[in-house]
């Protein structure tokens, strides 16, 4: 079972962690700075985009998903997918309520 060995062998080193740490700190600075700009519609989009980038970095490197088995990747993706299902399917109701009846 090659998957297992891969899991046991791959160790991410401090160098990668340091790079990610700095990326995350820069991301934090960026998002705070962006929130003070007047961008209207784009403000929340940018805030979420930066947050998502940070989250992806954490998941891929701190949580080793980049080096993990397909099963782990699938689990992560299904988590995100179900999260989006709950939100988007609920919003089908909330968004279209304002459209009036038909």
């Amino acid at each position: 079972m090659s998957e297992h060995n891969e899991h046991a062998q791959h160790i991410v080193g401090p160098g990668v962690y340091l790079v990610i740490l700095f990326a995350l700190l820069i991301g934090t600075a960026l998002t705070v700075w962006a929130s003070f700009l007047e961008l209207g519609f784009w403000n929340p989009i940018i805030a979420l985009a930066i947050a998502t980038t940070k989250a992806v970095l954490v998941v891929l490197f701190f949580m080793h998903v980049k080096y993990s088995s397909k099963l782990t990747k699938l689990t992560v993706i299904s988590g995100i997918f179900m999260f989006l299902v709950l939100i988007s399917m609920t919003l089908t109701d909330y968004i279209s309520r304002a459209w009036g009846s038909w």
Partner: protein
Amino acid sequence: MPNSSVHTAESAHEEHPAYLRHHFNSTEQQADAAGFAMWLFLLTEVMFFSGLFTAYLIYRNWYYPAFVSGSHQLNVVWGTTNTVVLIFSSFTMAMGVWCAETRRRRGLVLSLTLTFILGLGFLGIKTIEYREKIEKHHVPGFHYSMQSFLDPQSDPEVYAEYHDKPLVPDMARHTELYFSLYFLMTGMHALHMIIGIGILGFMILRARAGAYTAGHVTFVENIGLYWHFVDIIWIYLFALLYLISRHQ
């Protein structure tokens, strides 16, 4: 054959480390199963928080001005500090996992202790923030006060920074929803932090005894995953609760 543990052909020739539970055939299988279980647990955590995020999304769209004024009540300096604290704690946690994997006992203890302290620091800052809300009667429920939103000038510190216009009463009432979600989401997050810190304390004690630097690192890895997950939740909470609209 009473009480004899049955060895199969494939596992008989390996030697069994003490931590291998009886029902697993190999240490890889055990580590794999534990890691996968942790990921599934995090999956349930995602779904647990997703209910709150859904509520947040709906009410933010409905009562945007209330959410803006409400978020101005949060201290962005404390929020940013806390984000940085958590990011550093995630880093030290990741280092801890690395130390465990490469069997560095002192490094592991140091990393875990740092993570522990940073976690406590986060909670300390959160307490300061919560106390400010309690003093201003911004805790939803029977003692909730809309004063800061009906008359922003009564709250000189925040007013000096953002010059919020007063909200009309019906919109001001909805700041309570903002604070409900604020306390719910940060409260749930803080609860996860407290649990994590408790486990970290336990781990530090065991790590000093060398429990995780003898090859069996699953537990450290799993708690690491948990800690990073809590960090991710905060990254989103910070963006959604603190940074709604900071420009004047």
